[in-house]
């Protein structure tokens, strides 16, 4: 589909009126099109107004039922990010709140990191096609039948996609348009083990577009982060994350 065509889908997208395949195509377009993202945000807020107008009488017993249900439902972790020193255990609660704070700081400083997650294997296969991955192992992750993809808009117009295959227990990160890291620095990838960052390899600092297989097994990690580290990488993050992404469910 040509771009001009895609652009007019912003209304249908914001109203959840796109079939799956077109939704995925539009989300990929959205990651590259700041004007579209702004328009979608406005349309989504407009749709919420249409929704507010539907407020009406409720089944009275629902309140108690819902309050009863949530008491037994465990909440998800906050989106994690950290300036804290990883590797010490026993301070998880305190550390995870610092991670959350760092994520807010990072998001504010970068003008926001908007994430659209979608979970269709078709997306993963499309990412794979775009990535033209040469490494077999990387290709295996990107094309796994159970591959799930989450996409994010990163700072400076860059975009990223994380692809996870549960059956292979591996994850890959695909970036496009990432700024060159400062001299002597490198982007380092991390698995997020419930707030503790586990090193997952380095990105090639000379390439704005690349596909990287995260080193090591996913092993239950529920997200990934990217930090700027001294060349060669660090055993634990030494700077706030430039991006944090949850693995798609």
């Amino acid at each position, binding site marked *: 589909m040509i771009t001009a065509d895609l652009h*007019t*889908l*912003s*209304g*249908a997208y*914001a*109203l*959840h*009126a*796109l*079939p799956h395949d077109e939704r995925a195509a539009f989300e990929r377009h959205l990651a590259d099109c700041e004007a579209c993202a*702004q328009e979608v*945000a*406005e*349309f*989504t*807020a*407009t*749709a*919420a*107004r*249409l*929704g*507010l*107008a*539907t*407020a*009406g*009488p*409720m*089944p009275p017993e*629902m*309140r108690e*039922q*819902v*309050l009863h*249900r*949530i*008491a037994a*439902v*465990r*909440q*998800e*972790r*906050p*989106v994690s990010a950290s300036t804290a020193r990883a590797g010490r255990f026993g301070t998880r609660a305190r550390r995870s709140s610092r991670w*959350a704070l760092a994520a807010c700081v990072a*998001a*504010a400083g970068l003008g*926001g*990191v*908007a994430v659209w997650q979608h979970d269709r294997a078709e997306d993963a296969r499309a990412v794979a096609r775009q990535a033209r991955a040469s490494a077999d192992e990387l290709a295996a992750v990107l094309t796994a039948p159970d591959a799930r993809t989450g996409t994010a808009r990163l700072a400076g117009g860059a975009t990223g996609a994380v692809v996870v295959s549960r059956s292979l227990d591996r994850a890959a990160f695909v970036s496009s348009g990432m700024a060159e890291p400062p001299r002597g620095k490198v982007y380092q990838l991390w698995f997020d083990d419930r707030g503790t960052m586990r090193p997952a390899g380095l990105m090639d600092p000379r390439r704005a577009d690349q596909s990287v297989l995260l080193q090591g097994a996913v092993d239950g990690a529920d997200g990934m982060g990217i930090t700027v580290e001294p060349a060669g990488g660090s055993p634990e993050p030494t700077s706030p994350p430039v991006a944090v992404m*949850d693995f798609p469910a």
Partner: protein
Amino acid sequence: MKEAVYIGPNPSSEPDLTELVQRVAMGDQDAFAALYDSVASPVHGVVRSVLRDRAQSEEVAQEVLVEVWRTAPRYRPDRGTPVNWILTLAHRRAVDRVRSVEAAAAREHKAALLDRLPDYDHVTEQVEARLEREQVRRCLRTLTDVQKQAVTLAYYRGLTYRQVAETLALPLGTVKTRLRDGLVRLRDCLGVTV
């Protein structure tokens, strides 16, 4: 009135709900009860509008509200107000449900679909909700017939734009464009800023 729906980087226009969500994110069940009282009615309204079936609507609305509890720690103010987040979630879940059950079922007749749009006059309740409804109704009236039908079928009925095109016997391209320019007009009329 509904300052809540003006989304932006500065949540000061909506101190209460944002603060409530932050407390919910820390596991505060009392805060969740208060949040429930603020949003459950439109959540149920959105879901009911799309699903129409009463039992299913209650089920999905409950699921949405539980999901709000579960995912509150991941709520990010920079991505929109709590109301925006929650009603977008509600609409998404309702649409997911209707698309999963409708695959085999024939679509309803256009007249039936348009007939049962939300009956704005039917309910009387707190002034705020009535004002919101009046404003939305007023702004919907500024749309052309095609814009209005396309937007309402897509949002209030959960139809894909292809189904909208089929229902209104219009070309796909026309429906895409009308959804977009209809939303532009509504956005401007409602004064939505991001």
